[in-house]
């Protein structure tokens, strides 16, 4: 449990960092002093306390250092209004096209305004009229207007501006002239490969499923929500079941099960299976955009697969803490992201509350198996709801008691849709006629999902805004 406690302390450090006015140099000095003290005081209790203080200071320091921008960073530059800038850089993310406008994240390396050329660093969110399909890693020169449209307040403000800042985006560009392509950077090959695989799967869904079925399957399997009808998304928010449209632990679990089953079929030795399954999981993680829930699930899955090999006992709290550390050590600002908080709060509630409620209500003693399954499903839903209700009320000003009942029906439907979607992908390669049958079933399941959701939100007192 030491890892869990230290992770909590580290998170506390990150949380309090925006409220500390101390400069990084002083914090670094304090951390060094505490580190020296922890070498001297090795006794159990005082040693652990000093370690906790050190980790706390480390959390504050880590966050503040991540917020510091080097001199060449775009965030430190002033952009004149309506002036045209030439920016050279690399396409760092997938190009999304919607309503005849494309947008993508661009990693800038050079900035030119009239005759002056500057080297620079930083991400830009680029908007460009028209439909473009630049592969990730394309080196381009873009010409357009640049601005910092958001005034940075304290970090606890919940707004689109802070959402972009947490992704490291501090500038926005509106491209005015056709982009100039220079070349393709080789080091983005993995991202390109995973995106091409993702687009292939999207084409499979569009070929076999109806438009609604394909949009739901893409959201559940690939984390691609762009085609979900806005009204359906809103309705699922009201019923508290919008989490099924996010790639999370259950999807990763299904991927592991399918991969391990295939490896077992191929008679691969048990000890070798985790080493072959992990690269597939990592590829899936990159393909689905490496969002917080997917990274969390991938790390926990890695611990689950690796623990027997290392002859270590599995501990849910420690593996959850490790997943949190993996995300926060890359980007500590993710602690303030609502997706991060909801994802970890729900899993923590499941780990901590579900077993206790289950034993308190003596669910094990229920005689009929199907009744026991329903009761356990309801308790899982209740535990997750308890863990996230406060956060949902705070961020979205929404209170949805219908979530408890809705999840009992919708989560199993979502699991079936995910399984059917994976079947469509698999059989589209080996036996397409069965893929058509699976697609018909999947469409029917999506129809049921939409109907049940619609019924739930029309119940009296289903949801209310606070």
């Amino acid at each position, binding site marked *: 449990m030491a890892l869990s406690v230290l992770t909590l302390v580290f998170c506390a450090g990150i949380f309090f960092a925006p409220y500390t006015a101390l400069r990084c140099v002083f914090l670094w000095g304090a951390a060094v002093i505490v580190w020296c003290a922890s070498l001297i005081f090795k006794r159990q209790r005082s040693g652990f306390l000093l370690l906790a203080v050190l980790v706390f200071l480390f959390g504050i320091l880590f966050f503040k250092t991540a917020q510091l921008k080097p001199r060449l960073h775009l965030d430190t530059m002033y952009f004149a209004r309506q002036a045209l800038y030439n920016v050279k850089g690399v396409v760092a993310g997938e190009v999304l096209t919607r309503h005849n406008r494309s947008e993508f994240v661009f990693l800038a390396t050079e900035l030119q305004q009239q005759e002056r050329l500057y080297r620079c660093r930083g991400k830009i969110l680029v908007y460009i009229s028209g439909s473009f399909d630049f592969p990730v890693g394309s080196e381009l020169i873009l010409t357009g207007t640049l601005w910092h449209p958001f005034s940075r307040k304290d970090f606890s403000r919940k707004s689109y501006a802070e959402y972009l800042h947490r992704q490291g985006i501090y500038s926005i560009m509106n491209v005015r002239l056709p982009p100039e392509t220079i070349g393709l950077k080789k080091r983005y090959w993995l991202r390109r490969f995973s995106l091409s695989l993702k687009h292939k799967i999207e084409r499979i869904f569009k070929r076999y499923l109806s438009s609604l079925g394909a949009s739901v399957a893409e959201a559940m399997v690939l984390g691609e929500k762009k085609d979900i*009808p806005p009204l359906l998304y*809103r309705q699922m928010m009201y019923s508290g079941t919008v989490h099924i449209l996010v790639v999370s632990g259950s999807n990763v679990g299904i991927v592991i099960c399918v991969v391990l089953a295939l490896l077992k079929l191929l008679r691969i030795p048990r000890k070798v299976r985790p080493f072959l399954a992990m690269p597939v999981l990592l590829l899936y993680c990159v393909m689905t955009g490496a969002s917080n829930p997917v990274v969390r699930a991938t790390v926990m899955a890695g611990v689950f697969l690796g623990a027997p090999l290392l002859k270590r006992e599995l501990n849910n709290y420690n593996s959850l803490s490790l997943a949190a550390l993996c995300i926060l050590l890359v980007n500590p600002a993710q602690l303030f992201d609502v997706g991060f908080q909801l994802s970890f709060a729900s899993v923590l509630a499941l780990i901590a509350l579900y077993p206790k409620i289950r034993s308190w209500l003596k669910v094990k003693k229920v005689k009929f198996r199907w009744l026991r399954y329903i009761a356990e499903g309801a308790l899982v839903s209740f535990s997750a709801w308890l863990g996230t209700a406060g956060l949902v009320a705070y961020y979205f000003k929404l209170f949805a008691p219908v979530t408890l009942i809705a999840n009992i029906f919708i989560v199993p439907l979502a699991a079936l849709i995910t399984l059917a979607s994976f*079947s469509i992908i698999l059989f589209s390669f080996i036996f397409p006629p*069965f893929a*058509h*049958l699976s697609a*018909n*079933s999947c469409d029917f399941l999506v*129809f049921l999902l939409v109907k049940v959701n619609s019924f739930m939100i029309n119940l009296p007192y289903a949801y209310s805004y606070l």
Partner: protein
Amino acid sequence: MINLTSQERAALLFLIALGLVGLGMRIAAKLNTRNEFLIMNASRDIRINLNEASLEDLLRTRLVSPKLAQKLIEFRNARGALRDLQELKELKGVGKQRYEKLEELFYVE
């Protein structure tokens, strides 16, 4: 005799169930074309019928601004029932981009 583990049995049963449901849907669709709606989009649940929606219905979705919702209701009341969603393009303030967004939210029947 084929010896299946419980996991293999569960996987096989799942695939058979998937095939059976799919066959059932296909048979129903072929016998009665009205059943195609089970496989196609369930329009009523993912879009709003603009000819039947009230101002409160539009505002409750929180996907349409109050000003636009008012304009849509007034446009519909002035015209009577809309026959095609394309008629919205005649509304002042509804350009190509806004129309594409409205197309995702509404249908007419």
